[in-house]
């Protein structure tokens, strides 16, 4: 199987505290991979490191063979990597639809925008069509003209997924996509994300909800104190000694029960 | 209803202004960093108006001067001048203090065919404003030349010079240096300080290091007070201090510090000058803060004389009258003797010394 994202020996320390200690893994195209681990195990830092928000101390990150670790976030996005945030903050003075349009960054240059022209109009029409399509698929059509900041937490999550998808990514990284999302909606999300994977988009999902992971992911990466302690299918998680060690050693027995 | 009343009142007031009295205009720095000078100019104008109206007014009616604030800037001055031109329709405008405001003000007035009376700017560039701009104040070349000669005459050769870093300071600095060097002296330290600082100790000490024979300064208000106080505190005041326009340099300084300073000032020894100084003291309860009040006073007096001679407030006629009067008019600041460029050529100055709490001729 070809790989899309390769992470090799990624290390990061904040003021002397090692948060990531030599993380290695790889993801293939269209694969759905979950990242789990107790609080403070470095999941969010890993996502920030891959997407370029946190510069790494050592290690290599490659997307389709191109090294990412020295690139700024917008360059990484340009290579086909999109992400969402754990607590997505949304603009106050832009509607949901406008945020989706803004998420398509093609032809946004100063002169192209000022002069307009046929190509610019065509691009705008294409963006609007795409945004309308995602509004429908993410069940956001009803709040199309609402200020994005006025959405509920769950709707914001969906909107940020929509934003990420407007850029036609090869790899989509989701930071806790289900937190605050209504349980009914959660099921729809599973179907929707599987649909994305079927189109060849790889998904890397940081999540606490083990049911969600179990339904969606083909593979799990378990982080503990900045190290990958296990890589296995969701079904194997409850038998994995390192996973038990990682969770029992921490304050999250509840999560594990859910997984079992 | 109330609005209509307001409009009627405004029209009535405007009519009252134009129909019954000659109104002149003035643009002064009444707010901003030169406000203390603007305030002194305003005192002079108020005194002149009171004097003229006490003697029956002008052309048989009371005289009024509409005073506007320039806010210490060119655009503010242009706002005010446009208002005076377009709404108050005054023939003559007096102003301003800083030459960086007087020049655009004068340019505008000349363009509108109005009379500009420069009562406070002494930069040589004033000369180029145009055909209807008259200077009542001797330009820097006059005062600087007088001061340089005076200082050389006193036997001083090495001079430390300090003035504010503005249009006035930069202008007088250049002129003073030129005349001093021409007479064989040298400026060993030259400081154009940034106005409005809480302390000038550093500047003073920089000058001290060149060990001058005399410190020459020209400052006003709060800055002059701080410079004098700090030179006293640093022991620098033991070397002689020479003030260009000494009365404004020492106006806000305690007598104990100012004692012993020498300098020059616009002559107020003539009868008109002394009458003005006495009247000022009587009216405001303190001695003249600066000679800017007397220039402003003379400005109104000159304009009134010209209008009286022309028997009209029409600007063209006033200009013609001013051209005649300019050569011979004498006011609180002495004889004007305007030259072909309408600039003052003669400016009597006094040599003064500050002794026992007040200024005396030396």
């Amino acid at each position: 199987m070809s790989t899309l994202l390769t992470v090799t020996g990624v290390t990061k320390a904040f003021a002397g505290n090692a948060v990531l200690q030599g993380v290695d893994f790889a993801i293939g195209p269209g694969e759905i991979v979950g990242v789990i681990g107790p609080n403070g195990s470095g999941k969010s830092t890993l996502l920030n490191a891959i997407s370029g928000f946190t510069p790494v101390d050592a290690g290599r990150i490659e997307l389709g063979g191109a090294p990412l670790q020295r690139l700024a976030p917008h360059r990484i996005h340009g290579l086909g990597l999109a992400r969402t945030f754990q607590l997505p903050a949304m603009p106050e003075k832009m509607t949901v639809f406008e945020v989706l349009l803004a998420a398509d960054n093609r032809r946004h240059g100063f002169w192209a925008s000022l002069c307009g022209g046929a190509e610019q109009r065509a691009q705008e029409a294409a963006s609007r069509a795409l945004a309308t399509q995602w509004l429908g698929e993410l069940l956001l059509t009803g709040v199309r003209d609402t200020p994005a900041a006025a959405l509920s937490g769950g709707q914001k999550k969906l909107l940020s997924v929509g934003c990420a998808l407007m850029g036609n990514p090869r790899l989509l990284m989701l930071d806790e996509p289900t937190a605050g999302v209504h349980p009914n909606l959660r099921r729809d999300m599973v179907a929707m994300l599987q649909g994305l994977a079927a189109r060849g988009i790889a998904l890397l999902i940081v999540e606490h909800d083990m049911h969600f992971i179990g339904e969606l992911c083909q593979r799990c990466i378990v982080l503990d104190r900045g190290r990958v302690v296990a890589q296995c299918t969701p079904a194997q998680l409850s038998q994995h000694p390192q996973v038990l060690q990682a969770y029992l050693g921490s304050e999250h027995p509840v999560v594990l029960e859910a997984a079992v | 209803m109330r609005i209509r009343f307001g409009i009627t009142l405004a029209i009535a007031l405007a009519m009252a202004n134009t129909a019954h009295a000659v109104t002149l205009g003035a643009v002064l720095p009444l707010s901003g960093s030169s406000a203390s000078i603007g305030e002194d100019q305003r005192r002079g104008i108020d005194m002149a108006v009171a004097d003229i109206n006490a003697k029956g007014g002008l052309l048989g009616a009371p005289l009024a001067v509409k005073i506007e604030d320039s806010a210490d800037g060119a655009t503010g001055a242009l706002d005010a001048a446009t208002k005076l031109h377009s709404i108050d329709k005054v023939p003559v405008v007096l102003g301003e203090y800083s030459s960086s405001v007087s020049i655009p003000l004068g340019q505008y007035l000349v363009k509108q065919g109005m009379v500009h009376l420069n009562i406070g700017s002494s930069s040589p560039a004033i000369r180029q404003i145009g055909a209807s701009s008259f200077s009542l104040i001797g330009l820097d070349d006059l005062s600087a030349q007088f001061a340089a000669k005076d200082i050389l005459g006193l036997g001083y050769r090495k001079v430390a010079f300090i003035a504010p870093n503005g249009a006035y300071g930069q202008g007088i600095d250049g002129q003073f240096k030129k005349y001093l060097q021409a007479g064989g002296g040298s400026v060993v330290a030259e400081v154009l300080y940034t106005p409005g600082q809480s302390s000038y100790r550093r500047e003073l000490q920089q000058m001290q290091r060149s060990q001058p024979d005399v410190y020459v300064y020209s400052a006003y208000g709060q800055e002059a007070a701080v410079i004098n106080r700090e030179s006293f505190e640093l022991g620098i005041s033991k070397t002689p201090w020479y003030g260009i326009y000494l009365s404004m340099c020492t106006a806000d300084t305690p007598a104990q510090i100012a004692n012993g300073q020498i300098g020059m000032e616009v002559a107020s020894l003539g009868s008109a000058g002394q009458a003005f100084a006495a009247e000022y003291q009587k009216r405001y309860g303190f001695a003249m803060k600066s000679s800017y009040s007397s220039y402003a006073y003379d400005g109104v007096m000159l304009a009134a004389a010209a209008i009286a001679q022309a028997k009209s407030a029409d600007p063209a006629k006033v200009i013609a009258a001013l051209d005649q009067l300019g050569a011979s008019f004498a006011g609180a600041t002495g004889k004007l003797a305007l030259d072909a460029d309408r600039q003052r050529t003669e400016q009597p100055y006094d040599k003064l010394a500050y002794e026992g709490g007040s200024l005396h001729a030396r």
Partner: protein
Amino acid sequence: MFDFCLHVLTLACLYGLMALALNLQAGYAGLLNFGHIAFVGVGAYAVGIGRLAGWPLPLSMLAGVACAMLLGVAVARLGRNLASDYWGIATLAVAEIVRIVVLNQSGMAGGAQGISALPGPLDALPETAQPLAFAVLGLFAVALAAWLSARLAASRFGRALRLLREQPALASCLGYDLGRLKRSATLASAAVAALAGSLLAGYTHFVSPDYLLAAQTFLVWSMLMIGGAGRVAGVLLGTVLVQGVYSFVPLARDLLGLGSETVGALRLGLIGAILLLCLLWRSAGLLPERLRTLP
């Protein structure tokens, strides 16, 4: 009265240009530029220095725009690693340094006294026609700038700027180069502001370091915030209102018939009070930015 209104209108147009320029940065992109007046000053001084060097006016104006844009690049570069409020004070520092340099350059820039007898763009017209012609020119310039700004705000670039202003991290992970967006906004703003400066110098036939005082930046900012940042109509309303207050407060004093002692204090106090009341009454601006609902 007519001439006075023309004067107020002309100044309002020139300040309107400056405010629209600032709106590109502050209103659209959320950049706190407190040194905006530096761009204006560069444009104005280009006309002055151009006169001293004997250049034709259009060339001077073009040079002014080019220099202001260079300064814009430098200022935007400064913003690459500064948080917004620190950047705001840094721009203020840049503007002050520019002012202090021209203040002390008596040879090249006229020093504190400034440069007078500057050429204006309409000098060829007869004297009496100039006020009206300049007002028309100002209106034309401000209308053009307003149309372009509105067009820009509605465009994909404008949308990117809004996203940058509201959620910079989101914009960054959606593939926008924030540094480049800020630079583009600053450059466009610098060009328009320099043009406004050149026109101001041409209108007053004069330029001096006073044109670069920090108070001038604050004046343009108050126009923006009182009218409504981010919305062209708001910015223009704010400009007309603030310029009107500055210009017409002296008339109010004449109506009240007060003596000369209070001129300075009254002007300053009334302006301050009116601005403050406007802010307290409609604290999001008189015409706040609206949501854009798209078809």
